[in-house]
């Protein structure tokens, strides 16, 4: 059987037996304590500067940033941005926070909003980000009842709401928050997204919009 052969080969190579308590202890320790490795200085900053770093790095990755004072400004910001692109539809995550907003600004600009998973041909989606990571201007989203993953990848344009207070310095802080929220079992998927889709597979020349969204718009709420 392959499994026994592979593990047996490894143990023979290491000259160790299965019942090697010292090695087992080392493995259990590392899994339990989850020691951090070197964390770069770059993002170890006061909160306000972390937000500035996030904005700089996100822009460098070609994300568009729209800053809003309040969460209830999201519908009008979506309406304005979609109109500027000539888009008349928006697929939203079936998220209770988003649902409670007053979406009349969309209707005023003849934009239709639906709540569902994404389908091929969708032009724009709206989701909520779990965290923003200043180090590289990265959004962290996770799957769940209220946040279908297809919305992050299939539509041509992806609009993401991010609270200023959800911005952390480094990935390690986001893992900590994720563990606090989910305990031992991770959500099915965690997506770290840094800018819109791109490829340099033709003559090493970078082109934006390969298979994922061609534009990534971050609606940053200065809560």
């Amino acid at each position, binding site marked *: 059987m392959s499994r026994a052969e592979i593990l047996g080969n490894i143990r023979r*190579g290491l000259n160790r037996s299965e019942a090697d308590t010292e090695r087992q202890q080392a493995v259990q320790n590392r899994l339990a304590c989850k020691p951090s490795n070197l964390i770069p200085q770059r993002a170890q900053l006061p909160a306000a500067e972390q937000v500035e770093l996030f904005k700089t*790095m996100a822009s460098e990755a070609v994300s568009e940033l729209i800053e809003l004072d309040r969460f209830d400004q999201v519908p009008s910001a979506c309406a304005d941005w979609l109109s500027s692109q000539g888009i008349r539809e928006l697929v939203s995550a079936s998220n209770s926070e988003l649902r409670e907003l007053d979406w009349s600004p969309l209707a005023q600009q003849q934009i239709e909003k639906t709540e569902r998973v994404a389908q091929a041909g969708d032009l724009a989606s709206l989701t909520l980000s779990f965290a923003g990571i200043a180090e590289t201007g990265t959004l962290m989203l996770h799957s769940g009842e209220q946040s279908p993953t297809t919305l992050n*990848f*299939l539509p041509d344009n992806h609009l993401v709401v991010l609270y200023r207070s959800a911005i952390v310095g480094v990935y390690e802080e986001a893992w900590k928050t994720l563990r606090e929220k989910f305990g031992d079992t991770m959500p099915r998927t965690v*997506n770290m997204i840094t800018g819109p889709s791109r490829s340099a597979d033709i003559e090493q020349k970078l082109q934006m919009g390969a298979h994922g969204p061609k534009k990534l718009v971050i609606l940053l709420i200065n809560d």
Partner: protein
Amino acid sequence: MQINTPFFKQRAHDALADANLQKALGNLKAGFPEKRAIAVSRMPEFEQLRDQGRDLKNHILEHLDLYLEEFERKVIENGGHVHWARTADDANRIILDICQQVDAKTVTKGKSMVTEEIGLNDFLEANGVQPVETDLGEYILQLRHDHPSHIIAPAIHLNLEDVSEAFHANHHRPKSSDPAVLMQEAREVLREKFVAADVGITGANFCVAETGSTIIVTNEGNGDLTQTLPKTHVVVTSIEKVVPTLEDMTLFLRLLARSATGQEFSVYNTLSSGPRREGDQDGPENFHVVLVDNGRSEMVGSEFQDMLRCIRCSACMNHCPVYGAVGGHSYGWVYPGPMGSVLTPQMIGIEKGGMLPNASTFCGKCESVCPVRIPLPKLMRHWREDEFEKHLQPKAARYGLAGWAFLAKRPALYKPYTRMASWMMKAWAGKNGRIRTLPLAGGWTDWRDMPAPQGKTFMQAWKEQQKAGGQQ
């Protein structure tokens, strides 16, 4: 994939004379190394990260069996399945089996070198399942019935015109030479494939034992569509990719993108931890991980164990003067460049792969950029020793070396011989000191002149310097 490694010499010769290939390779030389250098200069702790990456990989390899068991336990706990494949054939059969269980007609594929290694596409096709590559580079290659020549930039050997022709022939649309139009075409054609596929197959950059997650690191988003839309997601990966925790994965993510494309971070870093959960509205219903060995477990405890640290970033080939001159296809199998020169003999045998560890100038550039500090030149030398011990080298090389060793071990012969050879070469070269042809050295002089030895031999110079009291 057919093994053409024994023909390295001829293939390299042809590659040097191929103007189109040389043009395409020019894009590589100007691109990746410069971008990496900028990314590294922006991360002052990069050298420390490399040290930690090396040390952490060593820790993992010393506990590889245990971390694999932990990873397996956690995947199953998440509702997924783990399959162990000793050989390429085992892996192919396992994957086909999964496809047949769900009556799959087509499978979409994210970029995966392990599936190239096991020859999955041909196997699936021969058994009635149509694989569709979705990474733009891999898709271009599939249309051309071609294979990747680089582990992260698979179509680097092609020019715009090649892509334009391949798309024109297959998409039945007006021919375009605009890369943006071509990419949009691929986007539209592949969108239907993503939605129609029954199974999505991806690789994994790392497997996290703590959470039972696999992660893919991409820029296009095709991997995410591949693994999110079909009912079944199959991750095909290899046993050395396991890491203990999310923190440990993070260390390697900080090294990977910077070493590979020179990006601060790739666009999509996606963790998959099992099938869709109760209440989820999308995502695969079945989640399988196929752990491929294919010779790796035999490297544990051997002189090649260090190679198992490799995170497949491609920095070694991006900086290699040999790769840059002859391209990836010259290497004749799946993995090119310095990392391929070490891995290939392990996977296809030194009898067939012996040319590769010799295809090196031993300049050491590969080791100097490796994010996990693999001593690639040293490992290539191990293969050369192995090849020598097994009497696999060509007779000329063997007798040549034996002749040289005979002389070198006898100073009374060696000194006058080298003095004479140096004098004769100088005389042969004439006034300008350049040798245009030299018996038995056509491999050198066909391409460039050989400079004639200047001045005294090393031994003469050494003696004189000693006499002068070590002064210059």
